[in-house]
């Protein structure tokens, strides 16, 4: 506690607060705008902070990192363009809520949920770091293999549709993840000889195509009379969730926080896996699973909380062990090094003022983000009142900018192909979320399997050597078997 007070006393100077604000503000902006990512922003700003003091510099850069998860929600909910990978799930129920006239409420729940997740995540980093960090080391290739299989099986099982159709989407997603040069030997794979495909299919064109472009096509086919959205209430506080929505988001928020934080600590899946697992979990425990995909509050509140908790969780191994869990926190590590700070236990001992100052800045930053985001909501929901004739070209152009920065012309082509594919798959009632998740997890799965077999010299027994991996594999098997059985439980719950 004394340490935390020390941190607050360090951060509570106008200059430090100012930089913290700048960081969170930039984070929000970067999250909202397509084509501008946290990775590039932090990398660009990093050399410019060299002359700053350590604490303001790091609290600004970290502010960008966790601020992004707040901003990313807006485009997913309002336009069905996933601003970040971790807000793909929000395109499902968050967007449907907006279509039902609850855009303001969706954004408020997401912002408050994010705030709770961010704050609890920071508390967890302050007090639970050393034991939780050990978790990172318990996961070797064999355990990762088991974890990914369990996650895929769980999400497939919970996906609610027909198992075989879900499995087809998983298989297709895994296949797409393989396209391009093999990361280990650089052999081009599944490219049909196309040179543009050697670089692989990027997540951005895939997600924007499947969700953004396909939604435009779906909208174009609807008669204008049917398209009219239920307007958001026009009263001053009309954007606030009603009592029913508040009540229904309490459970998802705390479940999402815990789940998201734990998943976020593990390198690889991070915030995105957290949001998917939370969505799956909420659908499973919900008393109204049939509402999912049609604007269920739980389907927004859980994942939006989980992805924020996930990004706080990803900071834990960085701060406590110097091990970044994802690309953005890897840039943060470089920023720490440039400022002469080596994250890890040594940092807490030798530079407690930096560590606790940073922690304090994260508490403050989350409050700032909440205060900054709530008034913006009223502004954001106005975009839904723009008629389709003007809105759809705008969405298309934003999608192009978002996609173009990931791979120029060829990425635009890929996004458009997936736009048409997504449109047809949705018409046929396939689960696109599963496809994206499998696409993201596929490379992790493959790498882990190959590493494990390399370590063991080809012996499969390596997957059954630790309790952790056995447990996860049993869970994966159980989910698949359960999925094959007729789904009586869900049917019973309907009445």
């Amino acid at each position, binding site marked *: 506690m004394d340490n935390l007070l020390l941190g607050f006393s360090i951060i509570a100077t106008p*200059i430090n607060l*100012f*930089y913290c604000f*700048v960081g969170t503000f930039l984070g929000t902006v970067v999250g909202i705008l397509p084509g501008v990512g946290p*990775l*590039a*922003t932090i*990398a*660009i*700003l*990093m*050399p*410019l*902070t060299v*002359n*700053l*003091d350590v604490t303001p510099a790091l609290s600004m850069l970290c502010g960008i990192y966790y601020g992004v998860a707040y901003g990313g929600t807006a485009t997913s909910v309002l336009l069905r363009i996933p601003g970040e990978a971790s807000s793909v799930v929000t395109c499902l129920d968050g967007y449907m809520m907006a279509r039902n006239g609850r855009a303001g409420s969706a954004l408020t729940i997401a912002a408050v949920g994010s705030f709770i997740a961010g704050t609890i995540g920071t508390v967890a980093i302050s007090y639970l770091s050393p034991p939780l960090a050990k978790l*990172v*080391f*318990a*996961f*070797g*290739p064999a355990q990762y293999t088991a974890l990914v299989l369990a996650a895929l099986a769980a999400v497939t099982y919970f996906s609610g549709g027909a198992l075989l159709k879900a499995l087809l989407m998983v298989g297709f997603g895994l296949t797409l993840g393989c396209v*391009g*040069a093999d*990361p*280990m*030997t*650089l*052999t081009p794979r599944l490219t049909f000889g196309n040179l543009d495909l*050697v*670089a*692989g299919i990027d997540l951005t064109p895939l997600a924007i195509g499947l969700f953004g472009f396909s939604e435009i096509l779906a909208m174009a086919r609807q008669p204008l009379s049917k398209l009219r959205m239920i307007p958001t209430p026009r009263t001053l506080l009309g954007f606030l969730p009603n009592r029913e929505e508040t009540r229904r988001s309490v459970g998802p928020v705390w479940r999402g926080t815990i789940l998201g934080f734990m998943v976020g600590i593990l*390198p690889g899946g991070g915030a995105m896996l957290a949001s998917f697992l939370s969505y799956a979990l909420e659908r499973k425990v919900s008393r109204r699973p049939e509402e999912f995909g049609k604007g269920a509050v739980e389907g927004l509140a859980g994942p939006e909380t989980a992805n924020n908790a996930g990004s706080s969780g990803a900071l834990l*191994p960085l701060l406590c*062990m*110097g*091990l970044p869990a994802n*690309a953005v926190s*890897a840039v*943060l*590590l*470089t920023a720490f*090094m*440039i*400022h*002469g700070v*080596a*994250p*890890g*236990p*040594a*940092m807490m001992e030798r530079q407690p003022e930096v560590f606790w100052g940073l922690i304090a800045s994260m508490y403050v930053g989350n409050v700032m983000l909440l205060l900054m985001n709530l008034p913006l909501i009223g502004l954001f929901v106005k975009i839904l009142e723009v008629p389709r004739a003007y809105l759809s070209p705008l969405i298309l152009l934003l999608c192009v900018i978002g996609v173009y920065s990931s*791979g120029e012309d060829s990425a635009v082509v890929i996004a458009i192909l997936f736009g048409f594919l997504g449109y047809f798959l949705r018409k046929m009632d396939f689960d696109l979320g599963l496809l994206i998740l499998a696409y993201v997890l596929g*490379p992790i799965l493959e*790498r882990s399997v190959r*590493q494990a077999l*390399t*370590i063991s*010299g080809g012996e499969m027994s390596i997957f059954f050597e630790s309790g952790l991996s056995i447990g996860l594999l049993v869970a994966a098997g159980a989910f698949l078997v359960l999925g094959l059985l007729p789904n009586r439980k869900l049917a019973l719950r309907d009445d």
Partner: protein
Amino acid sequence: MKRRDFIASGAAFTAGLVAQPATARAQAWPTREITIIVAVGPGSSADALARGVARIASRELNATVQVKNVLGGAGLTGFAELAASKPDGHTFGVVNVGGLLVFPHIMKVPYTWDSFSFLGGVAEGYYGIGIAVNSPIKTIEDLIAAGKSRRVTYSASAIMNGVAMIQLGNATGAKFQFVPASTQPEAVAQAVGGHVDVVVQTPPDLVPLIEGKQLRLLASATYNRWPNYPDVKTLKELGYDAATIVPLGFACSSGVPPAIRAKLEQVIAVAAKDPELMATMRSLTILPRALSGPEFRDAIQSQASTVEGILVAAGMKKT
């Protein structure tokens, strides 16, 4: 003072990249922004170096200099883009051993050594062998003994990191198995968790865990001892002629006119001696090593036969 720093940073952000409007427009070159292609992601040592060099080049040439991370194909895309860049001196890039010595053996690449003009080197990476503190292996001798009785595994985020291990294995007959990791932290975590025996990485990856008493530095895998652990000997000092040498430097397309190339070479030479960049390198624990264009080319070429041997041994050599 602080306020001004911020305004400077904010202005640079809004102006897109680390940008300074070109005031002297009379010169024939540069006529537009200069791009430094980096084939690795932001956050890596090479990226931090390139951004440092971009600032110096921007100052020296009075032009906008931006860093462009061209990812994909494990770095191949960036190399191909550099080789194919318009030879007007507005594009140069970071080149390393991987693109020049590894890729051409593994796959068809759209460039050769002659596609590039080498501008000079600025740094060299330190490498070291790290091992979990609770491992029964305490010395390099223990490691070699273990490698003679079983397969000893080592993780690394790039095949090049392991050059020292392969040379060590060849010299002693011990068996060391490379386990490729996709990122630096993954390689390190596998060694700390005991999933592999040792890890070969650079200081930024290893230092936090060494300081955190999770990992021990067994030996330096370069010809120099690490500045922050001067007591840990190099492999060479321990009696084994094994080292991972990875020079970091810059090159441009070979068609760039000699006059412009000379200016770029000069910029790299200035950058390699720049106090601020040296400070950045020190904080990232990269060994500053200024090399002229030809010296840099030779430094990379001297690794050619070693790397080829490794690729053949790993069964990765295709062409």
